[in-house]
């Protein structure tokens, strides 16, 4: 029983963080109809920013979030004005190619600068600590904090999108760019803002994740794929959709845990021999494929 409950908790906690990973992607997609392949690389940069800031200044890794957010916001805006703006003029294939190039660029730049070693945080108030809730549920403190901050970030973005003038302008740009331009909304700036918010939320997610995962220049793709699965499930462009889909994907990554629960509870010998942990991300890819083919609008999608 405790295997089941602990897996459930672990899945939900990581799901809240993964939701934040997908948030930036869904915003950019919602506003501009462009898919950012370099999304995971933004996140990887966030991870390095968090790690290096914490190591250089000695502050607790959790307090590096503003730095990471600022770096991501700036990076998003630079990418938009320096690159995406030009790519947007071309056909879809060019956008795909372009963001893919951006992904390769950022990934290998990180490789050049940081080397391919895995790095991780070893010091911090919460690093390595965990709470025991009974029933065999053990919650690492860093994950709990990351999940909490992730929810806070989500709420902040949701409020920004729905309760402020800027957010309304963003939504208007998303729904009808030409109309928005006629209404005097600076759509160009709105696009840049979407990239800024998208980049910032990705790097913040990265700075949270680096508290309990290690980082190397190649982690980006995994997160890009996870983010795509979440966005597909939640509906492209939907912010609350991304949150709930994040939880679902978090649970999907815990399938090995549920499998263990089944095999030990019912003593199925053959189940114990299946190398389920090798497949932990495969189910995410399968989920993406199945959702896209059978329900392309996702669970909460409003944009086709």
């Amino acid at each position, binding site marked *: 029983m405790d*295997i089941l409950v*602990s*897996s459930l908790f*672990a899945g939900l906690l990581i799901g809240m963080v993964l939701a934040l990973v997908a948030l930036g992607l869904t915003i950019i997609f919602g506003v501009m109809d462009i898919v950012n392949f370099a999304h995971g690389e933004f996140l990887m940069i966030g991870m390095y920013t968090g790690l290096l800031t914490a190591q250089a200044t000695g502050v607790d890794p959790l307090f590096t979030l503003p730095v990471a957010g600022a770096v991501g916001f700036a990076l998003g805006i630079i990418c938009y004005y320096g690159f995406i703006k030009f790519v947007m003029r071309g056909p879809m294939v060019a956008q795909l190619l372009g963001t893919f190039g951006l992904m390769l660029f950022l990934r290998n730049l990180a490789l050049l600068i940081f*080397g*391919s*070693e*895995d790095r*991780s945080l*070893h010091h911090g108030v919460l690093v*390595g*600590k*965990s709470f*025991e809730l009974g029933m065999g549920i*053990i919650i*690492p403190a860093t994950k709990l904090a990351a999940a909490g901050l992730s929810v806070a970030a989500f709420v902040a973005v949701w409020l920004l999108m729905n309760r402020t003038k800027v957010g309304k302008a963003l939504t208007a740009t998303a729904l009808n760019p030409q109309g928005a331009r006629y209404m005097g909304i600076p759509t160009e700036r709105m696009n840049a803002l979407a990239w800024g918010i998208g980049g910032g939320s990705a790097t913040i997610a990265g700075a949270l994740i680096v508290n*309990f*995962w*290690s*980082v*190397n220049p*190649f*982690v980006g793709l*995994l997160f890009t794929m996870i983010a795509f699965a979440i966005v597909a499930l939640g509906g492209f462009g939907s912010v609350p959709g991304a949150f709930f889909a994040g939880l679902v994907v978090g649970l999907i*990554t*815990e399938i*090995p*845990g549920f499998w*263990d*629960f089944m095999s*030990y509870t019912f003593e199925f010998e053959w189940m*114990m021999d299946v*190398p*389920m*942990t*090798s497949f*932990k991300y495969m189910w995410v890819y399968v989920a993406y494929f199945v959702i896209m083919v059978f329900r392309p609008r996702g669970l909460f999608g409003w944009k086709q």
Partner: protein
Amino acid sequence: MKSWMKVGMFALAVLAVGLWMVPSGAWAQKEIKIGVIYPLTGGAAAAGRELRAGAELAAKIANSAMPDLAMPMAQNQGIKSLGGAKIKLIIKDHQGNPTLGADLAKKLILDDKVDGILGCYFSSVTKTVSAVCEQYKVPMINGSSTSPGLTERGFKWFWRTTPHDRWFTKDLFEFLVGLTEGKVQGVKAVPREEINTLASACEKTEWGSHVSGLIEEFAKEYGFKLRKSLLYAAKSVDLSSEVRSLKAARPDVMLFASYTSDAILLVKTLKAQKAHPKIMWGQDAGFEKPEFRETLGDSINGILTRTVFLPKVVDIKKLAGQVNDLYKEKTGNDLGGASARAFTGLQTWVAVLEKAGSTEPQAIQAAANSIEIPGKDLVVPWKGIRFSTKGKELGQNVLGSGLIGQYQKGKDGKMELEIVYPFDVSSADMIFPFPEF
């Protein structure tokens, strides 16, 4: 038709010029080129630096005379039987990628014209590199890849100095049995049922997957219950579901085969998940790297690792102490399993060349097959080096042996590896059971 003839003539001319330009062999051999392929970047970069330093130190000793070192290669400059020819290492980086390794080997053999190859640490890379060497009939000596399969392929140009995982894994089970019989220093006989269930997590390429298979095999043979054995990617950035799966099996003994960064991540995650097995054992590699000790600090107190060299060996072997001092001077660290074996690997190369008295592959092959290095000339605590020349295994050193060490916090607060197996050379009381993190 005529133009085709012209092309043909041209091609022939080019060919003729090309043949002229090919350097016609090296007669006055001043240096012997050994290609060295190690993981200098990538997840095992730290190990690569150690390996490189070990091999370079051995080359330095071979190339200069250091009479106070009691080993043959320190006595004269260069290779005596080759007129004092110097050893030159051409070091390449395989990044942990087997295909890249094979590519580099080809380049070393065909473009750099090396006389032999040393490497490659990762068993998966050693596999492809040795295949290339076999094809081109270039001798290769391997100092630190321990997958048993490597010497079971019937290769005639591949020799391995290190003992392999079959011995190490057997050592582990002998040790566990010894524990139940009260043979371990400082521990009363432990009832069998207290350490009867095992679980293993190994990295999933050549080396780890073989270790995993061996653990399964020996567990059956020695009558232990292996509840879970899982494979994981060494490049993982998160191992929490693997660790939860291990924990769910409720093992008394946890066994690992991990490279550096994944070993650190594993122990960290185990700690965060409050796992408390009675014994934790690592199959060398990551578990004995300086990084492992530095990053994890006190939490590794009580972890066991198999190895072939511990700084404690210095106490029983004078030569090891002297080489260790030289190594420490060069790098600031003590010799470890990786660097000591890289050192021994190149030392074997030197001895083989000395015996061969030639750089002809055939001569080297004959010399390697009949070489006999006594244990007193080695840094590592082995009986010596002699390669098997018939039977199932070809080119395996049959005189090697392994150790099991345990991390213990010394009086000065520093983590030291103490020998706990073989029982007759143990250097301290064993900590049992494994203290909680």
